């Protein structure tokens, strides 16, 4: 995702938006799913994210990191949607392994691992889990995560290490 794509997006080229979608929709959707806990809400938030990007396309030519910017917009949409959900007081079930990860249907071992890791991720505090999601599954750098979450880079790194230590501890006790 380079400056050329940003310029095309700013001009409002539909193909550029399709390119952006293909480059980051899966990662965005996974991040939104973890934040919102429901596939339907994640779908809606993803659509709203792209609509917002289209609406303010002129700004896209000037952003420093397009990836970080797109995740920031998605994060704001997730916060907005979560707030409206609190008003509707909807309760959600925790996500299980195959809801979060792609696992081959016949591979029981992989399914168990995915289930255990989903459970381990599920017991993390939301602020720690967000960092793990953005680092490991969205593939962002600490600097980009810092931009998305509006936290100092040092805090992001510390939270990431704390989260990994918690995960290791939890898995050691459960497995």
């Amino acid at each position, binding site marked *: 995702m380079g400056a050329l794509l940003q310029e095309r997006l700013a001009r409002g080229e539909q193909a550029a938006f399709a390119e952006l979608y293909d480059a980051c929709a899966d990662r965005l959707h996974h991040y939104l799913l973890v934040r919102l806990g429901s596939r339907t809400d994640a779908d809606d938030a993803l659509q709203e994210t792209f609509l917002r990007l289209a609406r303010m396309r002129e700004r896209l030519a000037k952003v420093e990191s397009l990836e970080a910017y797109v995740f920031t917009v998605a994060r704001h949409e997730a916060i907005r949607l979560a707030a409206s959900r609190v008003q509707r007081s909807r309760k959600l079930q925790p996500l299980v392994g195959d809801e979060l990860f792609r696992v081959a249907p016949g591979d029981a071992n992989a399914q168990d691992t995915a289930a255990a890791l989903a459970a381990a991720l599920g017991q993390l505090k939301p602020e720690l889990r967000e960092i*793990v999601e953005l680092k490991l599954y969205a593939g962002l750098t600490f600097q980009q995560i810092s931009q998305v979450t509006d936290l100092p880079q040092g805090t992001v790194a510390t939270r990431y290490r704390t989260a990994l230590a918690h995960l290791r501890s939890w898995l050691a006790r459960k497995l």
Partner: protein
Amino acid sequence: LVGEETVNYDEIQSLLAPLTPRGAEPELRTRVLAAVAEELQTPQRGLWPRAALAVAAAIVVALGLNLWLDHRAEQRLAELFGPPPASKRATEVARMVAEAAGAPAGRWVYERLTARPNTSSDPAKYYAVLQRIVEETQIGFKESGHEALEENRPVDRRGPRRPGGDTSDRQRLVRGELRLTA
């Protein structure tokens, strides 16, 4: 483990990283891109032009309302007291201006000279309003008695004398109330 000095981060990362996150369903792509295409068709709506339009509309409405209210007040006064009496002096000045600068200038000067001050139509009401304002703004400067000078008992003058200007034999007595605040 948590709290231990050395935690093998690579180990836990190597467990988590190979998992492939489940992404968006393929149907969602069509839905999102269709919505984006629709959005791209609509012209960009800047915030400033809309805000400027709203402000301009509000100003126009306010001016219109002001003029209408002014007109209504004038009408009501005319209904109550009839048209304002023409001042002889104003008529004379206006006539002189009209001779020198033309009829429109004379009419303008006459209107300016005969403009009525915006006061209440009912003298009794006007007097009551004035009285209320005076009462509200009046401040009573009654002797509060919070501060008073109290002279000490006569000092024994047989001892060593104080230097000139020393007022330590007088004290200001303040009767303050001790109030505890939250």
